Protein backbone atom coordinates (compact mmCIF):
# COMPACT_ATOMS: atom_id res chain seq x y z
CA UNK A 1 0.00 0.00 0.00
CA UNK A 2 1.26 3.40 -0.86
CA UNK A 3 1.80 5.61 2.14
CA UNK A 4 0.01 8.78 1.21
CA UNK A 5 0.06 12.06 3.07
CA UNK A 6 -3.44 11.39 4.36
CA UNK A 7 -2.37 8.08 5.91
CA UNK A 8 0.62 9.77 7.48
CA UNK A 9 -1.58 12.53 8.87
CA UNK A 10 -3.86 9.99 10.46
CA UNK A 11 -0.87 8.20 11.91
CA UNK A 12 0.22 11.46 13.53
CA UNK A 13 -3.28 12.07 14.88
CA UNK A 14 -3.43 8.62 16.44
CA UNK A 15 0.12 9.09 17.71
CA UNK A 16 -0.97 12.27 19.50
CA UNK A 17 -3.68 10.39 21.38
CA UNK A 18 -1.36 7.49 22.18
CA UNK A 19 1.33 9.89 23.40
CA UNK A 20 -1.22 11.66 25.58
CA UNK A 21 -2.07 8.37 27.25
CA UNK A 22 1.56 7.31 27.55
CA UNK A 23 2.29 10.65 29.22
CA UNK A 24 -0.60 10.06 31.62
CA UNK A 25 0.63 6.57 32.48
CA UNK A 26 4.15 7.87 33.06
CA UNK A 27 2.90 10.74 35.20
CA UNK A 28 0.76 8.35 37.21
CA UNK A 29 3.61 5.96 37.86
CA UNK A 30 5.88 8.89 38.79
CA UNK A 31 3.23 9.92 41.33
CA UNK A 32 3.06 6.39 42.70
CA UNK A 33 6.82 6.14 42.95
CA UNK A 34 7.08 9.41 44.84
CA UNK A 35 4.27 8.32 47.16
CA UNK A 36 6.03 5.02 47.82
CA UNK A 37 9.26 6.88 48.55
CA UNK A 38 7.44 9.16 50.99
CA UNK A 39 5.86 6.17 52.65
CA UNK A 40 9.25 4.49 53.03
CA UNK A 41 10.45 7.60 54.85
CA UNK A 42 7.38 7.62 57.07
CA UNK A 43 7.66 3.89 57.79
CA UNK A 44 11.28 4.15 58.86
CA UNK A 45 11.23 2.48 62.28
CA UNK A 46 10.52 4.98 64.99
CA UNK A 47 12.10 2.96 67.78
CA UNK A 48 15.59 1.59 68.27
CA UNK A 49 14.18 -1.92 68.88
CA UNK A 50 10.83 -3.66 69.10
CA UNK A 51 8.86 -5.85 71.43
CA UNK A 52 6.89 -8.34 69.36
CA UNK A 53 3.84 -9.90 70.97
CA UNK A 54 4.16 -13.73 71.04
CA UNK A 55 1.16 -14.77 73.15
CA UNK A 56 -1.70 -12.88 74.72
CA UNK A 57 -5.17 -13.52 76.10
CA UNK A 58 -8.19 -12.58 73.99
CA UNK A 59 -6.06 -10.64 71.51
CA UNK A 60 -5.08 -7.89 73.95
CA UNK A 61 -2.59 -6.99 72.58
CA UNK A 62 -2.81 -8.66 69.19
CA UNK A 63 -0.24 -11.40 68.57
CA UNK A 64 2.45 -10.21 66.13
CA UNK A 65 2.09 -6.52 67.06
CA UNK A 66 5.42 -4.70 67.05
CA UNK A 67 5.85 -2.17 69.81
CA UNK A 68 8.63 0.32 69.16
CA UNK A 69 11.07 0.93 72.00
CA UNK A 70 12.95 4.04 73.04
CA UNK A 71 15.99 4.21 75.27
CA UNK A 72 13.91 3.95 78.45
CA UNK A 73 10.50 2.27 78.42
CA UNK A 74 8.00 1.72 81.17
CA UNK A 75 5.77 -1.31 80.68
CA UNK A 76 2.38 -1.70 82.34
CA UNK A 77 -1.39 -1.49 82.15
CA UNK A 78 -1.62 2.28 82.66
CA UNK A 79 -2.13 4.39 79.57
CA UNK A 80 0.83 6.49 80.66
CA UNK A 81 3.35 3.74 79.98
CA UNK A 82 5.56 3.65 76.92
CA UNK A 83 4.46 0.08 76.29
CA UNK A 84 0.83 -0.32 77.30
CA UNK A 85 -0.38 -3.89 77.90
CA UNK A 86 -4.12 -4.14 78.26
CA UNK A 87 -3.96 -7.33 80.32
CA UNK A 88 -5.64 -7.83 83.71
CA UNK A 89 -2.67 -9.73 85.10
CA UNK A 90 -0.29 -6.88 84.37
CA UNK A 91 0.26 -4.22 87.01
CA UNK A 92 -0.35 -0.54 86.38
CA UNK A 93 3.41 0.00 86.41
CA UNK A 94 4.86 -3.39 85.82
CA UNK A 95 8.46 -3.25 84.58
CA UNK A 96 11.14 -0.97 83.20
CA UNK A 97 13.09 -1.80 80.05
CA UNK A 98 16.10 0.32 79.19
CA UNK A 99 19.03 0.47 76.82
CA UNK A 100 22.29 1.34 78.56
CA UNK A 101 25.95 0.72 77.72
CA UNK A 102 24.96 -1.06 74.51
CA UNK A 103 22.78 -3.58 76.31
CA UNK A 104 19.10 -3.99 77.11
CA UNK A 105 18.18 -4.25 80.80
CA UNK A 106 14.88 -5.14 82.37
CA UNK A 107 13.78 -4.47 85.94
CA UNK A 108 10.55 -5.32 87.73
CA UNK A 109 8.80 -2.23 89.11
CA UNK A 110 7.27 -4.08 92.07
CA UNK A 111 4.51 -5.77 90.09
CA UNK A 112 1.94 -8.11 91.65
CA UNK A 113 2.55 -11.06 89.36
CA UNK A 114 6.25 -10.54 88.59
CA UNK A 115 8.22 -10.36 85.35
CA UNK A 116 9.73 -13.39 83.61
CA UNK A 117 12.65 -13.60 81.20
CA UNK A 118 12.70 -16.83 79.18
CA UNK A 119 10.32 -18.38 81.69
CA UNK A 120 12.30 -17.45 84.78
CA UNK A 121 11.19 -14.86 87.27
CA UNK A 122 13.64 -11.99 87.63
CA UNK A 123 14.76 -10.65 90.98
CA UNK A 124 17.03 -7.73 90.17
CA UNK A 125 18.01 -5.80 87.07
CA UNK A 126 18.56 -8.43 84.40
CA UNK A 127 20.24 -8.34 81.01
CA UNK A 128 18.05 -9.03 77.99
CA UNK A 129 19.33 -10.17 74.60
CA UNK A 130 17.69 -9.93 71.20
CA UNK A 131 15.40 -12.94 70.82
CA UNK A 132 14.76 -13.29 74.56
CA UNK A 133 11.19 -13.69 75.69
CA UNK A 134 9.76 -11.33 78.26
CA UNK A 135 6.55 -12.27 80.08
CA UNK A 136 4.46 -9.54 81.69
CA UNK A 137 1.15 -10.69 83.13
CA UNK A 138 -0.23 -13.16 80.60
CA UNK A 139 1.50 -11.46 77.66
CA UNK A 140 4.68 -12.87 76.16
CA UNK A 141 6.90 -10.45 74.23
CA UNK A 142 10.09 -11.06 72.26
CA UNK A 143 12.82 -8.42 72.01
CA UNK A 144 13.74 -7.81 68.38
CA UNK A 145 16.33 -5.65 66.70
CA UNK A 146 15.05 -2.74 64.64
Amino acid sequence: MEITFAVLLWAVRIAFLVLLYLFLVRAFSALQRSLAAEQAVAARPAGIAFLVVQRSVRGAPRVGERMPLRAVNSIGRDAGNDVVLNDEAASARHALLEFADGEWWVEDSGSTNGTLVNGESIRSRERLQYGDELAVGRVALRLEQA
Partner: protein
Amino acid sequence: MRSRGAAPRAALHVGAVRGGSSGGGAPRTAGGGVPRRRTAELGLLVWVALLALAGFAAVVGAETSAFGPAVIVVPAIYLGLVLALHVFLVLRRFRGDQLLFPLAAALTAIGLVLVQRLASDLLLQQLSWALIAGGAFVATILIPRDLTTLARFKWTWAFLGLVLLVAPLLPGIGREINGAKIWVKIGPGSIEPWEAVKLLLVIFFAGYLEEYREVLAQAPRRIGRFPVPPIPYLLPIIAMWGMAMVVMVFEKDLGATLLFFGIFLAMLYLATGEAFYTLIGLALLLGGGFVAYHAFPHVAARVDIWIRPFADELRFGAGYQLVQGLFALGNGGLIGAGLGNGLPERIPVVWSDFVFDAFAEETGFLGAAALLAVYLLFVYRGMLIALRAPTTFLQLLAAGLSFIVALQTLVIVGGNARLIPLTGITLPFVAYGGSSLVTNWMLVALLMRVSDASARIRGT
Protein backbone atom coordinates in the same frame (compact mmCIF):
# COMPACT_ATOMS: atom_id res chain seq x y z
CA MET B 1 -7.78 35.11 73.22
CA ARG B 2 -6.58 35.56 69.72
CA SER B 3 -3.27 37.14 70.61
CA ARG B 4 -2.57 34.41 73.13
CA GLY B 5 -3.65 31.65 70.82
CA ALA B 6 -2.27 32.78 67.51
CA ALA B 7 0.91 34.67 68.14
CA PRO B 8 3.17 31.91 69.51
CA ARG B 9 1.95 29.50 66.87
CA ALA B 10 2.69 31.95 64.09
CA ALA B 11 6.11 32.64 65.53
CA LEU B 12 6.85 28.93 65.60
CA HIS B 13 5.86 28.61 61.97
CA VAL B 14 8.04 31.44 60.87
CA GLY B 15 10.94 29.91 62.71
CA ALA B 16 10.38 26.50 61.20
CA VAL B 17 10.11 27.66 57.64
CA ARG B 18 12.90 30.18 57.93
CA GLY B 19 15.16 27.47 59.23
CA GLY B 20 14.27 25.36 56.24
CA SER B 21 14.60 27.87 53.50
CA SER B 22 17.62 29.72 54.72
CA GLY B 23 19.39 26.40 54.89
CA GLY B 24 18.84 25.67 51.23
CA GLY B 25 18.19 29.08 49.69
CA ALA B 26 20.53 31.49 48.05
CA PRO B 27 23.44 31.23 50.51
CA ARG B 28 23.94 27.52 50.01
CA THR B 29 23.68 27.79 46.24
CA ALA B 30 26.23 30.54 46.27
CA GLY B 31 28.50 28.35 48.35
CA GLY B 32 28.55 25.76 45.59
CA GLY B 33 27.43 22.15 45.76
CA VAL B 34 26.11 19.66 43.28
CA PRO B 35 23.01 20.63 41.33
CA ARG B 36 20.07 18.52 42.36
CA ARG B 37 18.96 16.19 39.58
CA ARG B 38 15.28 16.06 38.80
CA THR B 39 15.13 12.78 36.90
CA ALA B 40 11.40 12.13 37.14
CA GLU B 41 10.63 15.62 35.87
CA LEU B 42 13.04 15.34 32.94
CA GLY B 43 11.64 11.93 32.02
CA LEU B 44 8.12 13.32 31.86
CA LEU B 45 9.22 16.39 29.91
CA VAL B 46 10.42 14.07 27.11
CA TRP B 47 6.85 12.91 26.73
CA VAL B 48 5.62 16.49 26.78
CA ALA B 49 8.02 17.25 23.92
CA LEU B 50 6.76 14.30 21.85
CA LEU B 51 3.18 15.30 22.57
CA ALA B 52 3.76 18.90 21.46
CA LEU B 53 5.51 17.80 18.26
CA ALA B 54 2.79 15.29 17.36
CA GLY B 55 0.07 17.85 18.08
CA PHE B 56 1.66 20.55 15.94
CA ALA B 57 2.43 18.07 13.14
CA ALA B 58 -1.22 16.98 13.04
CA VAL B 59 -2.65 20.49 13.15
CA VAL B 60 -0.21 22.19 10.80
CA GLY B 61 -0.22 19.18 8.50
CA ALA B 62 -4.00 19.29 8.19
CA GLU B 63 -3.98 23.02 7.56
CA THR B 64 -1.23 23.20 4.94
CA SER B 65 -1.43 19.65 3.53
CA ALA B 66 2.30 19.18 4.09
CA PHE B 67 4.76 18.71 6.92
CA GLY B 68 6.84 21.83 6.44
CA PRO B 69 9.41 23.39 8.75
CA ALA B 70 6.58 25.35 10.38
CA VAL B 71 5.71 22.14 12.20
CA ILE B 72 8.91 22.34 14.23
CA VAL B 73 9.44 26.03 14.94
CA VAL B 74 6.76 26.85 17.51
CA PRO B 75 7.06 23.64 19.54
CA ALA B 76 10.86 24.02 19.45
CA ILE B 77 10.66 27.51 20.96
CA TYR B 78 8.20 26.32 23.58
CA LEU B 79 10.22 23.23 24.44
CA GLY B 80 13.34 25.37 24.70
CA LEU B 81 11.52 27.45 27.30
CA VAL B 82 10.39 24.37 29.21
CA LEU B 83 13.90 22.90 29.17
CA ALA B 84 15.38 26.22 30.34
CA LEU B 85 12.96 26.27 33.27
CA HIS B 86 13.88 22.69 34.13
CA VAL B 87 17.60 23.54 34.07
CA PHE B 88 16.88 26.59 36.22
CA LEU B 89 15.21 24.38 38.85
CA VAL B 90 18.11 21.92 38.75
CA LEU B 91 20.76 24.63 39.17
CA ARG B 92 18.75 26.25 41.91
CA ARG B 93 18.88 22.92 43.79
CA PHE B 94 15.14 23.09 44.04
CA ARG B 95 13.66 20.19 46.00
CA GLY B 96 9.99 20.76 45.25
CA ASP B 97 7.62 18.47 43.46
CA GLN B 98 8.66 17.01 40.11
CA LEU B 99 5.22 16.17 38.78
CA LEU B 100 3.39 19.51 38.67
CA PHE B 101 5.79 21.15 36.25
CA PRO B 102 5.50 18.49 33.51
CA LEU B 103 1.72 18.35 33.97
CA ALA B 104 1.38 22.11 33.57
CA ALA B 105 3.83 22.02 30.65
CA ALA B 106 1.75 19.34 28.92
CA LEU B 107 -1.45 21.33 29.39
CA THR B 108 0.21 24.49 28.05
CA ALA B 109 1.50 22.51 25.06
CA ILE B 110 -2.00 21.25 24.32
CA GLY B 111 -3.15 24.86 24.66
CA LEU B 112 -0.62 26.03 22.06
CA VAL B 113 -1.65 23.22 19.70
CA LEU B 114 -5.28 24.29 20.07
CA VAL B 115 -4.50 27.97 19.49
CA GLN B 116 -2.65 26.96 16.31
CA ARG B 117 -5.69 24.90 15.33
CA LEU B 118 -8.46 27.33 16.23
CA ALA B 119 -6.93 30.81 15.87
CA SER B 120 -3.50 30.55 14.27
CA ASP B 121 -3.25 34.34 13.96
CA LEU B 122 -3.16 34.49 17.77
CA LEU B 123 -0.43 31.87 18.10
CA LEU B 124 2.48 34.30 18.20
CA GLN B 125 0.74 36.27 20.92
CA GLN B 126 0.05 33.14 22.96
CA LEU B 127 3.65 31.97 22.55
CA SER B 128 4.92 35.34 23.83
CA TRP B 129 2.55 35.01 26.77
CA ALA B 130 4.02 31.56 27.45
CA LEU B 131 7.48 33.15 27.59
CA ILE B 132 6.22 35.82 29.99
CA ALA B 133 4.56 33.08 32.04
CA GLY B 134 7.93 31.32 32.22
CA GLY B 135 9.45 34.55 33.54
CA ALA B 136 6.68 34.87 36.12
CA PHE B 137 7.33 31.25 37.14
CA VAL B 138 11.03 31.97 37.70
CA ALA B 139 10.24 35.15 39.63
CA THR B 140 7.79 33.32 41.90
CA ILE B 141 10.38 30.60 42.59
CA LEU B 142 12.93 33.29 43.55
CA ILE B 143 10.87 35.82 45.51
CA PRO B 144 9.95 36.10 48.25
CA ARG B 145 12.80 34.18 49.84
CA ASP B 146 10.48 32.99 52.57
CA LEU B 147 6.92 32.04 51.65
CA THR B 148 5.69 32.78 55.15
CA THR B 149 6.30 36.49 54.61
CA LEU B 150 3.28 36.34 52.32
CA ALA B 151 1.09 35.68 55.38
CA ARG B 152 2.40 38.75 57.17
CA PHE B 153 1.17 41.08 54.45
CA LYS B 154 -2.25 39.49 54.15
CA TRP B 155 -4.23 42.72 54.46
CA THR B 156 -2.06 44.25 51.76
CA TRP B 157 -3.00 41.39 49.44
CA ALA B 158 -6.66 41.78 50.33
CA PHE B 159 -6.54 45.50 49.56
CA LEU B 160 -4.65 44.96 46.31
CA GLY B 161 -7.16 42.28 45.33
CA LEU B 162 -10.05 44.65 45.96
CA VAL B 163 -8.44 47.38 43.89
CA LEU B 164 -7.86 45.00 41.01
CA LEU B 165 -11.37 43.66 41.32
CA VAL B 166 -13.03 47.03 40.94
CA ALA B 167 -10.49 48.38 38.43
CA PRO B 168 -12.49 47.29 35.37
CA LEU B 169 -15.42 49.34 36.65
CA LEU B 170 -13.41 52.56 36.65
CA PRO B 171 -14.06 54.77 33.65
CA GLY B 172 -11.10 55.25 31.35
CA ILE B 173 -9.22 52.04 32.02
CA GLY B 174 -12.10 49.57 32.13
CA ARG B 175 -13.24 47.77 29.02
CA GLU B 176 -16.22 45.69 28.10
CA ILE B 177 -15.47 42.71 25.86
CA ASN B 178 -18.07 40.11 24.93
CA GLY B 179 -20.53 41.48 27.44
CA ALA B 180 -18.32 41.26 30.51
CA LYS B 181 -16.62 44.29 32.06
CA ILE B 182 -13.63 42.39 33.38
CA TRP B 183 -10.85 43.94 31.37
CA VAL B 184 -8.35 46.66 32.08
CA LYS B 185 -6.63 48.47 29.26
CA ILE B 186 -2.86 48.59 29.60
CA GLY B 187 -0.86 49.97 26.70
CA PRO B 188 -1.90 48.28 23.46
CA GLY B 189 -3.51 45.24 25.06
CA SER B 190 -5.82 44.54 27.94
CA ILE B 191 -5.57 42.21 30.88
CA GLU B 192 -8.07 40.46 33.09
CA PRO B 193 -7.21 41.56 36.61
CA TRP B 194 -9.39 38.96 38.32
CA GLU B 195 -6.96 36.25 37.25
CA ALA B 196 -4.40 37.82 39.58
CA VAL B 197 -7.08 38.47 42.19
CA LYS B 198 -7.70 34.76 42.62
CA LEU B 199 -4.08 34.20 43.71
CA LEU B 200 -4.15 37.23 46.02
CA LEU B 201 -7.38 36.04 47.60
CA VAL B 202 -6.06 32.56 48.30
CA ILE B 203 -2.97 34.04 49.96
CA PHE B 204 -5.15 36.40 52.00
CA PHE B 205 -7.59 33.67 53.04
CA ALA B 206 -4.77 31.34 54.00
CA GLY B 207 -3.20 34.04 56.17
CA TYR B 208 -6.51 35.13 57.71
CA LEU B 209 -7.75 31.63 58.43
CA GLU B 210 -4.43 30.56 59.89
CA GLU B 211 -4.80 33.32 62.44
CA TYR B 212 -8.48 32.93 63.27
CA ARG B 213 -9.20 29.28 62.53
CA GLU B 214 -9.45 28.34 66.18
CA VAL B 215 -11.89 31.11 66.96
CA LEU B 216 -13.95 30.11 63.96
CA ALA B 217 -13.70 26.37 64.54
CA GLN B 218 -14.68 26.43 68.21
CA ALA B 219 -17.93 28.26 68.15
CA PRO B 220 -18.70 29.34 71.72
CA ARG B 221 -22.40 28.58 71.53
CA ARG B 222 -24.52 26.10 69.68
CA ILE B 223 -28.21 26.10 68.95
CA GLY B 224 -29.08 22.45 68.87
CA ARG B 225 -26.46 20.87 66.64
CA PHE B 226 -25.62 24.05 64.80
CA PRO B 227 -22.73 26.24 65.87
CA VAL B 228 -23.41 29.94 66.31
CA PRO B 229 -20.59 31.58 64.42
CA PRO B 230 -18.62 34.29 66.21
CA ILE B 231 -20.03 37.18 64.20
CA PRO B 232 -17.10 39.65 64.26
CA TYR B 233 -14.75 37.04 62.89
CA LEU B 234 -17.20 36.15 60.18
CA LEU B 235 -17.46 39.72 58.90
CA PRO B 236 -14.84 39.10 56.22
CA ILE B 237 -17.00 36.23 54.96
CA ILE B 238 -20.05 38.42 54.67
CA ALA B 239 -17.90 41.08 53.00
CA MET B 240 -16.69 38.48 50.50
CA TRP B 241 -20.22 37.42 49.75
CA GLY B 242 -21.20 41.03 49.13
CA MET B 243 -18.18 41.52 46.89
CA ALA B 244 -18.93 38.41 44.87
CA MET B 245 -22.44 39.72 44.32
CA VAL B 246 -21.16 43.15 43.32
CA VAL B 247 -18.85 41.58 40.77
CA MET B 248 -21.71 39.57 39.40
CA VAL B 249 -24.01 42.53 39.11
CA PHE B 250 -21.69 45.22 37.82
CA GLU B 251 -19.09 43.33 35.86
CA LYS B 252 -21.51 40.74 34.55
CA ASP B 253 -19.02 38.00 35.29
CA LEU B 254 -20.68 34.90 36.68
CA GLY B 255 -17.56 32.78 36.43
CA ALA B 256 -15.44 34.99 38.68
CA THR B 257 -18.30 35.21 41.21
CA LEU B 258 -18.55 31.45 41.41
CA LEU B 259 -14.79 31.00 41.58
CA PHE B 260 -14.15 33.59 44.34
CA PHE B 261 -16.96 32.39 46.49
CA GLY B 262 -16.16 28.72 45.93
CA ILE B 263 -12.53 29.25 46.92
CA PHE B 264 -13.60 31.03 50.05
CA LEU B 265 -16.09 28.38 51.17
CA ALA B 266 -13.66 25.57 50.44
CA MET B 267 -10.88 27.21 52.43
CA LEU B 268 -13.19 28.04 55.31
CA TYR B 269 -14.21 24.40 55.45
CA LEU B 270 -10.60 23.22 55.23
CA ALA B 271 -9.56 25.51 58.07
CA THR B 272 -12.44 24.92 60.47
CA GLY B 273 -13.88 21.52 59.49
CA GLU B 274 -17.30 23.08 60.09
CA ALA B 275 -19.59 21.93 57.26
CA PHE B 276 -22.31 24.21 58.56
CA TYR B 277 -20.44 27.35 57.47
CA THR B 278 -20.18 25.94 53.98
CA LEU B 279 -23.89 25.21 53.94
CA ILE B 280 -24.68 28.77 55.05
CA GLY B 281 -22.40 30.07 52.32
CA LEU B 282 -24.00 27.91 49.65
CA ALA B 283 -27.44 29.03 50.81
CA LEU B 284 -26.35 32.68 50.58
CA LEU B 285 -24.95 32.07 47.08
CA LEU B 286 -28.10 30.34 45.92
CA GLY B 287 -30.24 33.06 47.47
CA GLY B 288 -28.19 35.77 45.82
CA GLY B 289 -28.32 33.89 42.52
CA PHE B 290 -32.10 33.54 42.75
CA VAL B 291 -32.53 37.26 43.37
CA ALA B 292 -30.11 38.06 40.56
CA TYR B 293 -32.00 35.76 38.21
CA HIS B 294 -35.14 37.77 38.72
CA ALA B 295 -33.52 41.20 38.94
CA PHE B 296 -30.91 41.13 36.17
CA PRO B 297 -31.63 40.15 32.59
CA HIS B 298 -28.07 38.98 31.79
CA VAL B 299 -28.18 36.40 34.59
CA ALA B 300 -31.62 35.24 33.53
CA ALA B 301 -30.39 34.93 29.93
CA ARG B 302 -27.53 32.63 30.99
CA VAL B 303 -29.90 30.36 32.87
CA ASP B 304 -32.37 30.32 29.99
CA ILE B 305 -29.68 29.31 27.54
CA TRP B 306 -28.62 26.56 29.88
CA ILE B 307 -32.09 25.13 30.41
CA ARG B 308 -33.37 25.27 26.83
CA PRO B 309 -30.59 26.05 24.36
CA PHE B 310 -32.51 24.42 21.48
CA ALA B 311 -35.55 26.64 21.86
CA ASP B 312 -36.38 28.33 18.57
CA GLU B 313 -35.54 31.85 19.68
CA LEU B 314 -32.22 30.80 21.28
CA ARG B 315 -30.82 28.19 18.90
CA PHE B 316 -29.65 30.76 16.36
CA GLY B 317 -29.44 33.62 18.82
CA ALA B 318 -27.98 33.82 22.30
CA GLY B 319 -27.71 30.05 22.59
CA TYR B 320 -25.89 29.57 19.28
CA GLN B 321 -22.45 29.21 20.86
CA LEU B 322 -23.54 26.55 23.33
CA VAL B 323 -25.57 24.66 20.73
CA GLN B 324 -22.60 24.53 18.35
CA GLY B 325 -20.43 23.41 21.25
CA LEU B 326 -22.82 20.57 22.02
CA PHE B 327 -22.81 19.51 18.36
CA ALA B 328 -19.00 19.51 18.46
CA LEU B 329 -19.00 17.36 21.60
CA GLY B 330 -21.39 14.90 20.00
CA ASN B 331 -19.46 14.88 16.74
CA GLY B 332 -16.34 13.75 18.57
CA GLY B 333 -17.49 10.23 19.35
CA LEU B 334 -15.02 7.82 20.85
CA ILE B 335 -11.73 8.71 19.13
CA GLY B 336 -12.76 12.02 17.61
CA ALA B 337 -12.50 13.52 14.16
CA GLY B 338 -8.72 13.75 14.39
CA LEU B 339 -6.71 16.86 15.22
CA GLY B 340 -7.30 19.43 12.49
CA ASN B 341 -10.13 17.44 10.97
CA GLY B 342 -13.20 18.60 12.90
CA LEU B 343 -15.41 21.63 12.51
CA PRO B 344 -14.81 23.49 15.78
CA GLU B 345 -14.59 26.82 13.88
CA ARG B 346 -18.36 26.78 13.89
CA ILE B 347 -18.36 27.66 17.58
CA PRO B 348 -18.02 31.43 18.07
CA VAL B 349 -14.98 32.46 20.19
CA VAL B 350 -14.03 28.79 20.39
CA TRP B 351 -10.35 29.49 21.27
CA SER B 352 -11.17 31.07 24.62
CA ASP B 353 -14.57 29.83 25.81
CA PHE B 354 -14.96 26.45 24.16
CA VAL B 355 -11.50 24.90 23.87
CA PHE B 356 -12.71 21.86 25.76
CA ASP B 357 -15.45 21.18 23.22
CA ALA B 358 -13.01 21.73 20.36
CA PHE B 359 -10.51 19.32 21.90
CA ALA B 360 -13.25 16.79 22.57
CA GLU B 361 -14.47 17.02 18.97
CA GLU B 362 -11.07 16.38 17.47
CA THR B 363 -9.70 13.80 19.93
CA GLY B 364 -13.00 12.29 21.02
CA PHE B 365 -14.04 10.89 24.33
CA LEU B 366 -10.60 9.32 24.76
CA GLY B 367 -8.78 12.62 24.38
CA ALA B 368 -11.21 14.56 26.56
CA ALA B 369 -11.02 11.94 29.31
CA ALA B 370 -7.22 12.02 29.17
CA LEU B 371 -7.23 15.82 29.40
CA LEU B 372 -9.45 15.70 32.47
CA ALA B 373 -7.21 13.00 33.94
CA VAL B 374 -4.22 15.36 33.59
CA TYR B 375 -6.15 17.96 35.60
CA LEU B 376 -7.11 15.31 38.12
CA LEU B 377 -3.47 14.33 38.61
CA PHE B 378 -2.52 17.98 38.99
CA VAL B 379 -5.16 18.63 41.65
CA TYR B 380 -4.46 15.35 43.44
CA ARG B 381 -0.76 16.17 43.60
CA GLY B 382 -1.58 19.68 44.82
CA MET B 383 -3.77 18.34 47.62
CA LEU B 384 -1.05 15.88 48.65
CA ILE B 385 1.38 18.79 48.85
CA ALA B 386 -1.14 20.55 51.08
CA LEU B 387 -1.46 17.51 53.35
CA ARG B 388 2.29 17.32 53.82
CA ALA B 389 2.90 21.05 54.20
CA PRO B 390 4.71 22.00 57.41
CA THR B 391 2.55 24.92 58.60
CA THR B 392 -1.13 25.76 58.61
CA PHE B 393 -0.59 28.74 56.34
CA LEU B 394 1.26 26.69 53.74
CA GLN B 395 -1.34 23.94 53.99
CA LEU B 396 -4.21 26.30 53.37
CA LEU B 397 -2.26 28.03 50.61
CA ALA B 398 -1.54 24.80 48.74
CA ALA B 399 -5.06 23.47 49.19
CA GLY B 400 -6.58 26.76 48.01
CA LEU B 401 -4.35 26.94 44.95
CA SER B 402 -5.16 23.35 43.97
CA PHE B 403 -8.81 24.07 44.52
CA ILE B 404 -8.64 27.03 42.09
CA VAL B 405 -7.55 24.70 39.30
CA ALA B 406 -10.14 22.08 40.24
CA LEU B 407 -13.04 24.51 40.44
CA GLN B 408 -12.08 26.41 37.30
CA THR B 409 -11.86 23.19 35.30
CA LEU B 410 -15.13 21.95 36.72
CA VAL B 411 -16.98 25.19 36.04
CA ILE B 412 -15.82 25.64 32.45
CA VAL B 413 -16.04 21.99 31.42
CA GLY B 414 -19.43 21.74 33.10
CA GLY B 415 -20.49 24.89 31.27
CA ASN B 416 -19.23 23.59 27.92
CA ALA B 417 -21.04 20.30 28.45
CA ARG B 418 -24.25 22.02 29.66
CA LEU B 419 -24.12 20.49 33.11
CA ILE B 420 -24.25 23.97 34.66
CA PRO B 421 -24.88 27.43 33.20
CA LEU B 422 -22.03 28.58 31.01
CA THR B 423 -19.66 31.13 32.49
CA GLY B 424 -16.77 32.97 30.95
CA ILE B 425 -14.05 31.25 32.95
CA THR B 426 -10.88 29.95 31.31
CA LEU B 427 -9.77 26.33 31.11
CA PRO B 428 -6.51 26.56 33.08
CA PHE B 429 -3.32 26.50 30.95
CA VAL B 430 -5.18 25.42 27.82
CA ALA B 431 -7.55 28.25 26.85
CA TYR B 432 -6.20 31.20 24.91
CA GLY B 433 -5.45 34.12 27.22
CA GLY B 434 -2.33 35.75 28.56
CA SER B 435 -3.44 36.85 32.04
CA SER B 436 -4.70 33.37 32.73
CA LEU B 437 -1.51 31.64 31.55
CA VAL B 438 0.77 33.92 33.56
CA THR B 439 -1.18 33.59 36.82
CA ASN B 440 -1.58 29.84 36.42
CA TRP B 441 2.18 29.42 36.05
CA MET B 442 2.67 31.54 39.16
CA LEU B 443 0.21 29.21 40.88
CA VAL B 444 2.34 26.20 39.84
CA ALA B 445 5.44 27.92 41.20
CA LEU B 446 3.75 28.62 44.53
CA LEU B 447 2.59 25.01 44.88
CA MET B 448 6.07 23.76 44.06
CA ARG B 449 7.54 26.09 46.65
CA VAL B 450 5.23 24.74 49.35
CA SER B 451 6.41 21.22 48.54
CA ASP B 452 9.98 22.51 48.50
CA ALA B 453 9.53 23.91 52.01
CA SER B 454 8.23 20.62 53.37
CA ALA B 455 10.94 18.62 51.61
CA ARG B 456 13.62 20.80 53.18
CA ILE B 457 12.15 20.48 56.64
CA ARG B 458 11.74 16.73 56.46
CA GLY B 459 15.15 16.34 54.92
CA THR B 460 14.01 14.20 52.00
